[in-house]
């Protein structure tokens, strides 16, 4: 549990230039400093690679001692002054093909079996169409129905799904990991 490292202080680490795989971390000052020296806080708290890149080191005092999660969240302030590395959208489908599912444009939630999760970076839009449980509202990341990858650098109008192209294997892996 990443919150377990929290004591009385929240430490928000600076983003690692050109890597950005760690956005902010939660931990004691000592742990944060140690981790900052070692790995910019990567091990100190939870990692949100799609989040913001902060420019400055910020400290926030938590007024109470260690509390439960929700109480902690009440005190937590967002690192809200940076730039997003990705934007997300999603769309549900009742089945894999529109011809067999005429309501595929506006399915009722109880009929949704697939959810298309999209991540947009500055260059790519990647979409994973995943099996979706309409009772728990959770996707099954082990069951990918279909994928899309568009390279906006060469294809801003999204006319060419290059997800199967060998050239894009590395890019796909990167954006997929961000989406996950």
């Amino acid at each position: 549990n990443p919150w377990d490292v929290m004591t009385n202080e929240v430490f928000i680490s600076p983003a690692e230039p050109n890597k950005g795989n760690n956005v902010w971390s939660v931990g004691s000052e000592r742990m944060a400093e140690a981790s900052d020296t070692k790995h910019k806080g990567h091990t100190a708290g939870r990692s949100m690679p799609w989040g913001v890149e902060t420019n400055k080191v910020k400290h926030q005092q938590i007024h109470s001692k260690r509390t439960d999660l929700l109480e902690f969240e009440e005190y937590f302030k967002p690192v809200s002054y940076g730039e997003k590395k990705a934007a997300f959208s999603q769309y549900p489908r009742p089945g894999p093909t529109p011809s067999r599912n005429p309501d595929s444009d506006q399915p009722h939630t109880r009929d949704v079996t697939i959810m298309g999760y999209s991540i947009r970076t500055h260059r790519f839009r990647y979409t994973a169409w995943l099996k979706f449980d309409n009772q728990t509202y959770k996707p099954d990341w082990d069951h990918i129905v279909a994928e899309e990858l568009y390279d906006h650098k060469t294809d801003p109008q999204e006319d060419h799904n290059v997800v199967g192209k060998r050239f894009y294997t590395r890019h796909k892996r990167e954006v997929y990991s961000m989406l996950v």
Partner: protein
Amino acid sequence: DQPNVLLIIVDDLRPVLGCYGDSLAITPNIDALAHDATVFTRAYAQQALCGPSRTSFLTSRRPDTTRLYDVHSYWRKHAGNFTSLPQYFKENGYHTASAGKIFHPGIVSNHSDDQPYSWSETPYHPPTQAHKQDPVCLGPDGSLHTNIYCPVQVEEQPGGSLPDIETTRYSVSWLKKWAGGTAVRREAPAQPFFLAVGYHKPHIPLKFPKQFLDLYPISSVSLAPNRWLPKGLPPVAWNPWNDLRWREDIAALNVSFPYGPLPDFYARYIRQGYYAATSYTDSLIGELLTTVDHLFPDTIIAFIGDHGWALGEHQEWSKFSNFEVSTQVPFIIRNWRRTHNDTAAHGISQHPQSFNQPEYSGNDHSTYEHFSSRTGCESLPPKSAKSSARKAVEYNGLVELVDLFPTLVDLAGLPTLPQCPRDSSQVRVCTEGMSLSHVVQGNLQTVNSNTKHNNHRNT
């Protein structure tokens, strides 16, 4: 010292606006707003459907948190008692009012526009919206139909008006009453307001005063450059645009299901209708902005679309997908302090004005004004070619509609929203977005100096 807030939401509006570089669009009033504001060029909805998108950005939580992917449930009962954007302002001393479509109607907002939580007074809905699906569109046979393409004579419509005209009149009247301090009950003399105005067009049917057609001669309307089904598109990604198919004009074309395509000649008409409906909405927004700027110059103005709309790209129409055209939205914010200072410093009129941009050189705004006067609306902003040396601030970073809530909260000086934990079902107030206030307040250089934006995505 707290500013007023005006939130304008336009239904199904993609960024076919002059200020977003669209060379065909004639939208001088929104462009004028953008001229003195921050334009977010890469803003995205979280789901390309009205109900889920609005619930998402009005609670600043993504659909997986609101658990709303359709239009059949109310988030407070279905997912959690999340505080809405207007509710937050209301609970922090604002008088909140709603006109037109803000929350998605029906069970999505508990058949009450989320009352009593969100609004200080009963939300206003235009009476003529009841005729939304009526067969009022003049067909080539001279009879009335339920079409997508639906230019109309306003005076001949049921109720003698159109919903967005009524919403604008109500909003203008509300502002005047608020300025007079007589008719609107407020808790304190200096109480600020949060007014949300929701426009129904250019949502289908594309019903608008027919005079706006002349802004876009059919010969000038091009087809989508990529109007073919993309190779490699998985079938699950396809949106069969059923919301168009049952309309009489589309049904008469016998378009095959699910891929179509729509004939080119009719695709051109739909695109013409969408642009005309957008200009019609722009004319009404101009009227609203004139009133706000005249009576309440210290107002934060936020302008967004709830999601995009495909205009034939990829052989698709409507929304219901993850394509760029379905999810990208206009997103403009004008800060009250910036407006105030700039108008003083640059001598810019506080009325929305046309401004010179190369894209508009071929367009005749006087014609536009002529049409507006015939819609029955009050007068548009005075035509002016006066241009400011200052250009709109464009921000090309990635932005999401869930960012709207924390941004407005920060700009208004209200207590900052905490970031949501992974499971926020028990947390009433939090955000899954991030504040853009640093961009709006002019700290853009700090941001841009640390990032490399890819200019290839510029419109």
